[in-house]
């Protein structure tokens, strides 16, 4: 959990308080904390005078607006056809083994979360993944271990 009230307020000051500000504010929270806490969604509802069900309903529509707790680095492996054909399963297994977590889980130190995602537009350089916002392409098992090790140092 994190304190969200002041962040929500700052984001609302920046993006406004009409309903159109909802997406940028949700994204602002994600940029800071990687997921939306229950309290953050309630604070947004209050700040923008929206129903909490609407805030939750909107967030839950978008795959990058998680409301489950996520690690500092969210790894998303593309599972759509080209990446699937080019060995994404092997990449996924490699990361699972390296981080000792399964797809969908977060490491106990809250550093990494491992997820799958739909096509991210790197089909010609498959398999691909995102770590937070940064894409990594043409992955091999060696390459992915190296990338994860780099992040473990961060």
């Amino acid at each position: 959990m994190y304190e969200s009230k002041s962040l929500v307020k700052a984001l609302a000051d920046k993006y406004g308080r009409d309903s159109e500000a909802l997406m940028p504010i949700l994204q602002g929270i994600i940029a800071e904390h990687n997921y939306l806490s229950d309290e953050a969604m309630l604070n947004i509802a209050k700040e923008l005078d929206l129903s909490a069900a609407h805030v939750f309903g909107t967030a839950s529509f978008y795959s990058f607006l998680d409301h489950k707790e996520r690690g500092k680095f969210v790894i998303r492996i593309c599972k759509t056809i080209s990446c699937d054909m080019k060995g994404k399963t092997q990449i996924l297994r490699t990361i699972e083994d390296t981080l000792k977590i399964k797809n969908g889980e977060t490491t106990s130190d809250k550093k990494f979360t491992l997820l799958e995602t739909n096509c991210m537009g790197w089909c010609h350089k498959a398999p691909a993944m995102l770590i937070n916002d940064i894409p990594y392409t043409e992955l091999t098992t060696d390459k992915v271990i190296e990338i994860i090790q780099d992040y473990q140092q961060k």
Partner: protein
Amino acid sequence: MENKSLNRVELIFEPCEGMDATLASVFKYSNDEITSELIDSGLRGRGGAGFPTGMKWKFTSATPGDEKYVICNADEGEPGTFKDREILAKVPEKIFVGMAIAAKVIGAKEGFIYLRYEYKFMLKELQERVDLFNDMIKGYIDFKISFRIGAGAYVCGEESALFESMEGKRGEPRNKPPYPTISGFRGKPTIINNVETLAFATMIVKYGAEKFKSLGTLDSRGSKVFSVSGDLPNAGIYELELGMTLQKFVDEFSDGDAKAVQVGGASGFCVPRKKFKDTIIGFEGVPTGGSMMVFNSTRSMYNVLHNYLEFFVEESCGQCTPCRVGCQQLLKGLKAVKKGEKPESYLEDLLKLSRSMQLTAKCGLGQSVGNSFASIVENFKEEMVY
């Protein structure tokens, strides 16, 4: 039917000369001259649906209203499509200029680029470049472009869903009519075009319709940027003249073992080898937003279809019955046939369902799920069963 040989073109990726010169060259025309030129060029929307761009601009211009918008659809989410990212990375000024011309034609003061979250890593540089552009355009019209970022929803590439998303809501497609030319973003007349379309519009206004028109066929004028992926040695992004047969495409790009090509992404059509020769890439044949996925003989088409359907089951917005439930039924039914829990004849029931989805779904997403389902099941039935 005329068909063209495979012809590489360099129009979109032709390096941008000085932006000032480009602006000066396109802003000397009147609004009528611009729309006439676009209509004459035959440019059709490059996102996949193929609506004539000049007509769209003309209609929006004719709709009364002081508040209008220009939106660039950069929510490139169709599996197998990645060419807009390249255009955004290499020649974004062409997009900005295209938006500015559109703004001039309809009298818009604000423009937005809806960039998919997956491309957010590009935002910093794009923002810098658009800031420069916004400064420069002041000398021509009162217009400003800003970015809006998606949050991971394929359906937001559907224009009315994109408006909903920009308005801070779930990206659920609206009922149509009314169309965006009448009621789009914030309920106001809106031009919404794909990245590539806007870039082409710039080139057409700059060089005149003739250069574009001389390429392609009667129904599919000009060139198109293709996202080429799958089982082939040189996957990548290629600008090609429209109107070639699939055979010519495969001869150029495949390693010789292609058994099928998925044209137009997961929502497009699967063409088997025996039909390569008779299939023209273009609106008179198989239309595409640019995705060309090649499958070699070792690929299981069952796995391909399974992957597509899983995609749609997740990415349907869920509001209308045919798409929400139909996608689940197609996936579950396909698996059941494969496992022998349902007889082969159940595929016929599913094909009928997929046709009903094409007829009854609320938006293009649900309507097009049947394209890949029917074209894969009909052409590779034995792979679905055994």
